[in-house]
């Protein structure tokens, strides 16, 4: 296996799917001639032409709605939102239309399309360019939500998302774009199934269920917790937020007895709260202590480096929360 960047993995996935199915087309701001603000769609206009790589004006509502229309007759649009924050600009088309179209038409029409773009904090973009939207997307039924953390998963899941007959929100993270990881070369095609979590680190004491850039933070936190505190975390990469692969998570919790869900969208009414609610619905008996969740602090994501760091639910907070879980309980550790 070779090593590739996250961006390169996405670019390959798009190219391969455009070759694989002539119904696939790209639409969004700067995606064509410039190749995308973050260069994810680079060179694809040259290869596939102006009918399949469409540079739009700054009209998110219109081009999102157009994606629905085209998808309804079997095209497979991949819509880029330059920042996933702009979800809110096109929210009616996304949540009132795309998410509902299959249902409202009694199944007569389906809208296989992908909404993709980067999100997240860590680069001082401030309140309107740093939000994570996975919980928002997950709240509305009818749209799958995928948020891979590695180049391997990113490529395989983007290909799967494009082939899926449902609308899929494909959430990238600006901190992941230049990360590298192993992936098979282009000639070895693979898909990563939507809806399957992946254990990225095994451990015996606490299950950390997370995804996207928080996965990397959780893995780092796990190392520190292990080295400095003797706590052994199992890190489950959910990869897909809707549907949640609770089976894999519960399997892990069966072993550790502890669950901490971590994500970068707001904690309040977030995916973490959802996972906590579900474990008590479906498998409370697995828990040896209260399940916990961690998300973005309830503030509008400040620009200042020190403030942004404070608001993000990253390594430091993960470590602190796991240690809090430990302090609250005798016999916390299963291993060593």
């Amino acid at each position, binding site marked *: 296996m070779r090593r590739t960047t996250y961006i390169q993995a996405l670019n390959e996935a798009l190219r391969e799917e455009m070759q694989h199915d002539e119904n696939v087309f790209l639409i969004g701001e700067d995606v064509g001639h410039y190749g995308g603000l973050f260069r994810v769609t680079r060179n694809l206009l040259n290869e596939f032409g102006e009918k399949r790589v469409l540079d739009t004006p700054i009209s998110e*509502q219109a081009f*999102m709605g157009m994606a629905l229309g*085209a998808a309804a007759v079997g*095209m497979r649009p991949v819509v880029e939102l330059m920042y996933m924050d702009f979800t809110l600009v096109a929210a009616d*088309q996304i949540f009132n*239309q795309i998410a509902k179209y299959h249902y409202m*038409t009694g*199944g007569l029409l389906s809208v296989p399309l992908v909404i993709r773009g980067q999100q997240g904090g860590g680069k001082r973009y401030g309140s309107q360019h740093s939000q994570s939207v996975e919980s928002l997307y997950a709240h509305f039924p009818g749209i799958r939500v995928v948020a891979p953390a590695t180049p391997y998963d990113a490529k395989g899941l983007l290909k*799967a998302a494009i082939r*899926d007959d449902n609308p899929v929100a494909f959430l990238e993270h600006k901190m992941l774009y230049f990360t590298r990881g192993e992936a098979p070369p282009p000639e070895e095609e693979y898909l990563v199934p939507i809806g399957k979590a992946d254990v990225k680190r095994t451990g015996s004491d606490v299950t950390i269920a997370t995804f996207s850039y928080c996965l990397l933070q959780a893995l780092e936190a796990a190392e520190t917790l292990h080295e400095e505190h003797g706590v052994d975390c199992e890190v489950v990469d959910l990869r897909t937020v809707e549907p949640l692969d609770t089976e894999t998570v519960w399997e892990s919790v069966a072993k550790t007895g502890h669950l901490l869900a971590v994500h970068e969208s707001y904690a309040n009414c977030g995916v973490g709260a959802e996972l906590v609610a579900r474990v008590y619905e479906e498998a409370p008996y697995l828990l040896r202590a209260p399940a916990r969740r961690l998300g973005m602090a309830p503030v509008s994501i400040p620009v200042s480096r020190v403030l942004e760091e404070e608001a993000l639910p990253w390594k430091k907070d993960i470590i602190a929360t796991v240690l809090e879980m430990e302090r609250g309980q005798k016999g916390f550790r299963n291993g060593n």
Partner: protein
Amino acid sequence: MQTADNVTEAVETENGAAQSPSTSEADTGSRTPPASITTDALPSGSATDLDVPALPTELLQEMYRMALTIRLMEEALLAAAEEGQIGGAMHTAIGHEANAIGAAYALRPGDYVTCTYRGHHHGLAWGMDPGRAIAEVMGRSDGFAKGKGGSMHFVSPEHGMMGGNGIVAAQVPHAAGLALASHIRGEERVAITFFGDGALFQGVMHETFNIAAKWKLPLIFYCENNRYSEMTPIWRTSSIEDIYLFPRSYGMNSMQIDGNDVEVVHAAVSQAAERARSGLGPTFIEGITYRLAGHMAGDLETYRPQEEVEMQQAYEPLTVLRQKLLARGIDEARITAIDEEVDEKIDEAVAFAENSPWPDKAETYLDVFVVSAEGE
């Protein structure tokens, strides 16, 4: 705090909103309405140099049959709503029929249409069966969408009907997307989208104007200007009087026509479709029309004088169509025969719908996601 009684009362007041008593008089705002709305079917600026060929009498007769089918279905639906058989917001197209019919007959099989919550006339004109349409509005299992979409979401892909919509103007970019699909695939299909005068003030409309004009999409924007948005007259919210001027600023072909005359509508849509198919891009058509019934079932219509409605009876599509038929030598007897035939057809359709079973509860949970093998 409420008692259980109150709760029940609320549950049973279907369409309570619209039926609640009104005290407002017809508009008495400081600004006055333009004269056109009370004196004529068309505002002053409506003259158009559109060439309107006479349609074959046979076709006019078919159109009359369709217009009456729509009208009687709408009346049956209003009656059913009053009985409580229909809930939610049901918007009838009484008075709007010609817009849909003229357009439907001007287009080809394979073309696409999207419309609003006020979409019954489009559905029928595009070939949807009245029985199944009524069943849909009533939430029965034989409805086109199994009772899930209801009145606001008429849909039948086999007829090119790609969906009504509950959100003002949301269906407009959908049609642009359909036109884009046709464009990308190099097909000859055109898309038409219907919307009301109020939709001009939803931003997405203008976003779509620009893209459609720039990309020369095979798209027809059809505005059914009935001079009201819910209970507010258009002159109170529009900065200009003639809506068809907005799309002109995008360099788009745009015209204002008599939307109550099927021949005029047919001519306009034919021309627009021809332009679209030959790569000349979108056309905007403002069909001046009038909604003879309330905005939705239960509307008490306190916001407009009754004389205004009565004045409009002279220009409404069925009247116009009947006049055309008489002028073509179709006699009263023949028309009456059609009337009876349609009347019977609608009775049957209502009976069909009323006998259609309720959907199974399990149906609630289906159609959220497509269940398919691909990609997984």
